[in-house]
C-alpha cells in the first residue's frame, strides 16, 4: 500500500498545479481537470517519480448531460498504480487537444470518441469516423441522440395525437 500513498501524494501535487479535483471511488484515484490542462496533466502523470502512469489503458467519452468528459485510464506495465484522468469538455463546442503525440495508441480511441460523442481532438493525424460511415448524422452515444428513425417517430406521434 506504500505505492498507493506515493501515488496519492503525486496526484494531489499535480491537482494543485492544474486546478484539478481529486476523488477516490472504489479504490481508484480520479483526477478531474478542465480540457485545456489535459496535455500538461497527462505528461506529468507519465513522468511521476516512482509511480509513473505511463501506459494509456483506455480512452473514452462520457456524456453527463450538462457537459462531456473524456476519460483516460492510465496504468503502468511495471507497477500496480492506476489513475483515471477526466477532462471536462464543453458540450456545445467539444474541443480538446489530442494525446497522440504522447501515446500513439490514442489514435483509434480518439477517432472512436469523435465518432460516438463528436469530441474534436485537435492535432489528431486522421480524425475521421471509425465505425460509422462518413455522412452519418449525429453522435449516437450522446444522451440526446434518438435511436428510432424519423419515420418511426412520426408514426408514434400521429398515433398519440389521434387517440
Amino acid at each position: 500500500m506504500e505505492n498507493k500513498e506515493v501515488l496519492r501524494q503525486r496526484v494531489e501535487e499535480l491537482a494543485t498545479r492544474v486546478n484539478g479535483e481529486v476523488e477516490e471511488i472504489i479504490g481508484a484515484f480520479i483526477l478531474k481537470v478542465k480540457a485545456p490542462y489535459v496535455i500538461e496533466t497527462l505528461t506529468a502523470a507519465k513522468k511521476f517519480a516512482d509511480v509513473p502512469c505511463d501506459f494509456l489503458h483506455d480512452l473514452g467519452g462520457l456524456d453527463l448531460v450538462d457537459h462531456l468528459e473524456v476519460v483516460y485510464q492510465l496504468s503502468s506495465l511495471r507497477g500496480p498504480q492506476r489513475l483515471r484522468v477526466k477532462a471536462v469538455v464543453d458540450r456545445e463546442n467539444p474541443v480538446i487537444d489530442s494525446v497522440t503525440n504522447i501515446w500513439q495508441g490514442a489514435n483509434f480511441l480518439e477517432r472512436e470518441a469523435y465518432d460516438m460523442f463528436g469530441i474534436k481532438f485537435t492535432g489528431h493525424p486522421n480524425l475521421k469516423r471509425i465505425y460509422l460511415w462518413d455522412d452519418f448524422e449525429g453522435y449516437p452515444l450522446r444522451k440526446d441522440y434518438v435511436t428510432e428513425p424519423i419515420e418511426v417517430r412520426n408514426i408514434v406521434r400521429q398515433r398519440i395525437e389521434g387517440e
Partner: protein
Amino acid sequence: MDIEKTQELPLNLGPQHPSMHGLFRMVVHLEGEKITKIEPKMGYLHRGMEKLAESRTYSQFIPYTDRLDYLASPHNNWGYVQTVEKLMGVEIPERAEYLRVIFGELARIASHQVCIASTALDLAGWTAWSYAFRDRERICDMYEMTAGSRLTVNIMRIGGICAEPPAEFWPALKSFLDDTPEMLEEYYGMFFGNEIAQGRLKSVGILSKELAENLSITGPVLRASGVNYDVRKAAPYSIYDRFDFNVPVRTGCDSYDRTIIRMDEIVESVKIIKQAVRDIPEGPIMAKVPKVIKPPVGEVYHSVENPKGELGFYIVSDGTTKPARVRIRPATFINLQMLPIVALGWKIQDIVAIFATLDAVLGEVDK
C-alpha cells in the same frame, strides 16, 4: 531520361475475404508487391453495444458480452460480471470462483487453438487447421454439457455461475487435460515445425518493445515483444493469486513468436486448470444477490486478461437499474493499431500473416 516508376496501386483486401477473420477491410497501397500504406476500415459488424447497454438492465447485458470476442465468450462474461460485482461489492462463493477459472482457462485454450488454426489456414495450411479445430470441439462439448450452447455460452451470472457442471463433465475435462501434451506436439509438428510456416513467420512484422508500449498493446502480442505483463499476475483478479503458473514471455517480436507464445500459454492454462480441479471446494455456486440489480451511484473500471489482450469495462452507475454508461475496452481493436505501422514495407502475403498473428476477432473490434 525519365526513370520508369511503378504506379501505386490501391487494393481493397476484404471485407469479404477468408483471411480477414470476419468483416474487416484494409485499403492496401502497393508499389509492385511492396506495401506503402495501409488504411484499416472497420465497423461492418458494429452493433452499438455501448448504446444497447444503456437501455438494458445489468443482467440483460450479459448475453451481449458473449458476442464481443465470440471465441472466448466466458471471458467476456467474466469481465463484465466482475465489474458489476466490484461496483456492488458482492463477494461470490468459492466454488463459483473455481468454476469461473476452469471455464475461463478452457476458453483461453479454445481461443488459442483457433488462433493457431487460423494462422495456419491463412498461410494455406489446411491440415494443421483441422487438427486444432478437432481438439477445440471437445471444449465446446464441455460448454454444452454445462450451459447448453457451444459458442456464445453465457455461462456467468452476477454473483456466480449459471449451472453446476454435470457428472460427465469432470471425466471429459480430465481426459482433455491429459491429451493436451500430445495435441501441442501435433500442432508443433504440423505447423510450427514446418519449414514453410517458419519461413513465412520468422522475422516478419517486427514490433519493438517501445512501440508496443506506446501503442497500448496488451496480451500475447505484447508478451511476444518481451514485456512481462499479464493482468493475472500484475493485478490478480478472482483467485489467480492462489495458482502457481508462469507468464510466458518471448523476445522475438516477430510473427512467429506472436503465434507460438499461444502454445506456451496453453501449457500454463492446463497447469491452472489442474490446480483448480484439485482444490475446488464443495458449496453453492451463486451468491445471494438481489433479484433486481441496483448498484449504488459510482463508477468503476475493471479489466481481465482475455486470451487476446486486456478486456476492460468501465461502468458508470446513476443508481438506477440500468447503467448510465458502459465503456468496453476492446483488446484487439487497440492491438490492431500496430498493423498500419508494422506491415509497412512488407509484401502483400506478409500482411496476411501479420494480421493473422494478431488474432483479431471482429466481434470485439467492432463492438
